[in-house]
């Protein structure tokens, strides 16, 4: 971790009204190193799942993207505070990139198990990608999904930032 990327990530979080993520982290002062570690782990996961074409989650990439699509970076940074699983961050980014949400299965048994399974697919060809989590915190991610109907059928479309404040 370079001190520069730590500073830039902190500024990015503050600019996106996510100061709480830094201030409320336990143990105090460890938010930025932990989040950078999560981004790094997401890159590894992305390469494992998608090969060399998988996205690389660097602070520079997020800064560059925020100049074109600030709302997408805001949504992604909010997800950074919503999940502890690198795989889920890859999934979020793939939705932001334009992947369709083809299927979501969620099962839950009180004090026993939680499972979230999302299948994404390309809008242009049949290339499904499956993402799974057993961490109940990841139920938070569902709040960001766009909701619409097509021919009276349900459609989740896109991943959006929640309103701050």
């Amino acid at each position, binding site marked *: 971790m370079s001190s520069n990327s730590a500073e830039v990530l902190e500024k990015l979080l503050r600019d996106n009204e996510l100061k709480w993520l830094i201030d409320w982290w336990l143990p105090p002062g460890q938010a930025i190193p932990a989040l950078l570690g999560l981004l790094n782990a997401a890159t590894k996961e992305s390469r494992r799942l998608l090969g060399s074409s998988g996205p690389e989650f660097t602070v520079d990439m997020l800064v560059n993207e925020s100049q074109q699509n600030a709302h997408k970076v805001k949504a992604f940074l909010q997800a950074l505070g919503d999940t502890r699983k690198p795989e889920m961050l890859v999934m979020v980014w793939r939705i932001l990139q334009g992947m369709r949400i083809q299927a979501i299965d969620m099962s839950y048994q009180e004090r026993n198990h939680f499972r979230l399974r999302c299948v994404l697919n390309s809008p242009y060809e049949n290339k499904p990608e499956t993402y799974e989590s057993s961490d109940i915190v990841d139920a938070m991610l569902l709040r960001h999904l766009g909701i619409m109907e*097509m021919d009276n059928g349900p459609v989740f479309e896109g991943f959006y930032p929640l309103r701050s404040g």
Partner: protein
Amino acid sequence: MQAVDNLSRIAWGEKAVASGKADKVPQALAGLLSPDEQVRNRSYWQLDNEVVLQSDLYEAAYFVIPFLVSFLRDHVPYGRDRVYDLLYEITNGEAPPTVMCRTTEGDGIPLKAACTREVKKGLAVYIRDTKDADPLVKQKAKQLVDVVGGEGIICPAGSSDAALDLCLRAIRRYWPQAVFENALTGERVDRYESLSVGLLAEVLVYQNRQAVHEWDKHPSSPSLGNSVIRLLPAQGSMTAAVYEPADQSVRKILQSIELPLKIDMLNRPTETPERRAA
């Protein structure tokens, strides 16, 4: 303001008006936005007597239209009612079919058709203004929409970028081969993922490449009205406009867009979570 800055890009001295050449048109266009009502009125009548005199259209009318639409899109603080008056006059103006105009698209077509086509490009802006807080602007926007034709939806949107994004994705569901055009620059991309959504002030979405070619070749053809949707994000609202609202295929798309915006999906608040351990 960008539109005013761009006034000098037009060779006004070569464009015809009722009294000769259009050298004074840029000054009158700028005057239309003056905080001084007298200046605005004087500018309006100057334009009204030069580019469209007693319903007769002159060449400069065509070149004035993009600026008028741009003033409205930018929600200028003064003169929007007068801008609508001028657009209305131009839309109802006439010119003999033999009077031709070299358009910005590069084709030579009758002046009347060129003006009609150019006014139609502002449809999403007029539809947005039918809900304007200023009753005069609201009324005049409605009048112009009635004349131009077309329909649309206007929904509240907390984040205009996110709302635009959602509309683009919803349209792509129906039109997987959609082509997206930055309405201000004319730049087109085939893929949603290539878009810089945050930098778009207005977007045209074409059904596919074929529709783009058809629009380029026959931009005034009414039969193409169901193959393009105009999207106009603005602070606090999102407008989607179509030229053929009776067409079932585009109506379905509008309905799909309307649901998430009407349930205010993009305005859900975050919650400050419990302290989180790394």
